[in-house]
């Protein structure tokens, strides 16, 4: 791990008790949902992480606690560093505080996460769906949401697939 990054991770550990993992030179720091806005503000103001490069989520269904990880990929232009924050969100309480006051780019990204995963962001200025139509039901990128293609049926598995086929059965 980069020396500068190590210091930042250490401070995050002290402040938020955050665990971290490293893989192929990338550092992922785990932050509790309640502390994410503080952590983002701290990184932006104290360590020049001025760009929220990416923000997305991963669904670990059928695991329920935590079911989701919300991922904040931060970039510091002046120091040329990257840091990833991961926020575990449990399946029962799908709520996170919004990060739009810290990074404006979180606005559309949070809308996308709400659209695709159904995680709500409290205090979001424009909580609408973004990619799917407004009247769409369900959240497509969840693992329990079917992909929507047709499984080919053969003689040996005709009935097995027929049972889970999503079409109206009389």
């Amino acid at each position: 791990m980069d020396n500068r990054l190590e210091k930042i991770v250490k401070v995050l550990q002290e402040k938020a008790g955050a665990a971290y993992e490293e893989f192929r030179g990338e550092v992922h720091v785990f932050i509790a949902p309640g502390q994410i806005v503080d952590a983002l503000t701290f990184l932006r103001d104290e360590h020049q992480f001025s760009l929220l490069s990416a923000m997305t989520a991963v669904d670990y269904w059928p695991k329920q606690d935590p079911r989701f990880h919300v991922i904040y990929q931060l970039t510091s232009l002046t120091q040329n560093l990257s840091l990833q924050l991961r926020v575990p969100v449990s399946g029962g309480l799908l709520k996170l505080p919004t990060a739009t006051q810290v990074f404006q780019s979180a606005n559309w990204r949070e809308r996308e996460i709400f659209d695709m995963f159904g995680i709500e962001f409290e205090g979001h200025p424009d909580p609408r769906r973004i990619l799917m139509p407004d009247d769409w039901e369900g959240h497509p990128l969840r693992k329990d949401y079917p992909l929507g293609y047709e499984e080919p049926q053969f003689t040996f598995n005709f009935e097995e697939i027929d049972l889970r086929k999503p079409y109206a059965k009389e």
Partner: protein
Amino acid sequence: MSEYQLQEIPVGPYRHLVSERAVSGETMLLNMGPQHPSTHGVLRLLLELDGEVVVNCIPDIGFLHTGVEKNMEAKTYQKAEVMTDRLDYMNNMGNNLAYVMAVEKLVDLDVPPRAQALRVILTELQRIASHLVWLGTSGLDLAAMSMFLYCFREREIILDIFELVSGQRMMVTYFRPGGVWRDVPVEFEAAVRNFIKIFPKRIDEYEALLTKNPLWLDRMVGIGKLDAATALQHGVTGPMLRASGVNWDLRKTRPYAGYEQYDFNVPVETKGDTYARYIVRVQELRESLKIVEQALNKLPLGPVHSDNRKFVPPPRSEIGTSMEALIHHFKLWTEGFPAPKASVYSAIESPRGELGVYLEGDGGPKPYRVHWRTPSFDNLSVISKIVKGHLVADLIAILASTDIVLGDIDR
């Protein structure tokens, strides 16, 4: 003839995004798109207009959403690559590169130098092709019709080179995890040299037509100003960010695919207006050509893919004589290769900005989660900030200067 009915757009769902005056009917809500030639794709902009002045602009995206991220989860790592071409259809080679780099990082796979150099040549040619489409269509939007014809004439040469190497003009899928599909044909070098020879003069021609053209300047200078702080707040990257004075180019700051070996400049402008974005992109045409020339001059000989048979299929000649090769070939094309239970984020500098791939494996042959951090998505999100107070005609110029690709936004 059928009778057309004028329908009013209800304010209700957009109440929190429009001004008070829209509720009282003082300002008008107008749809621009989704079918509109100047939106560069299927984009709908909901405009709140006071006369011809834009009060608010609410982009509505998702018309081209194809669920690529979900679809990729159901395919093996090799097969999922085909979808990457279809995201940003002006940057097919770049999308391939972003994806294979993420896969290579996840499974820790080496890439031989010849493949790296070919990747650089082809992605830079792709950058030129993408900027040419942008220049041509921007010209079209601002009534410089002939630009479109000139730019597409040159773009055709590049697409011919792509066809030569991959068999496809646009949906190339040429880069593969561990290298490239197969070595370039003998005609490749002459074709690229021919392009290097003719293109600088053509850029001079474009600049002679546009750079000091008073009509072009009138439409662009001082229009759609974006300062560096706002740009970063909105996650804007690429030429748009560099036109606002931030020197940030992933090819320089975090070199990948051997970009550190080549000598090139990163054009930066400070004004942040539509004209600055034009200048940056035109300069990038020249810089990309410099990189192509250097990479072609030092194009090393050798293999074009890794010989790690766990990830790269063996050559055809080996399959007939070696049992292992046959097994590897069979396993790779039926099962695919497993990737560790971990995640990586890998980003490249696409013609539009930071194109990142978040790739998570679960130990199996299919990605558990793929997320595309696409530059157009963020670059469009800032538009509602920068068009306020401009005329509708300026909105066209600003939209053209953001160089969005809707396939890139909607994924």
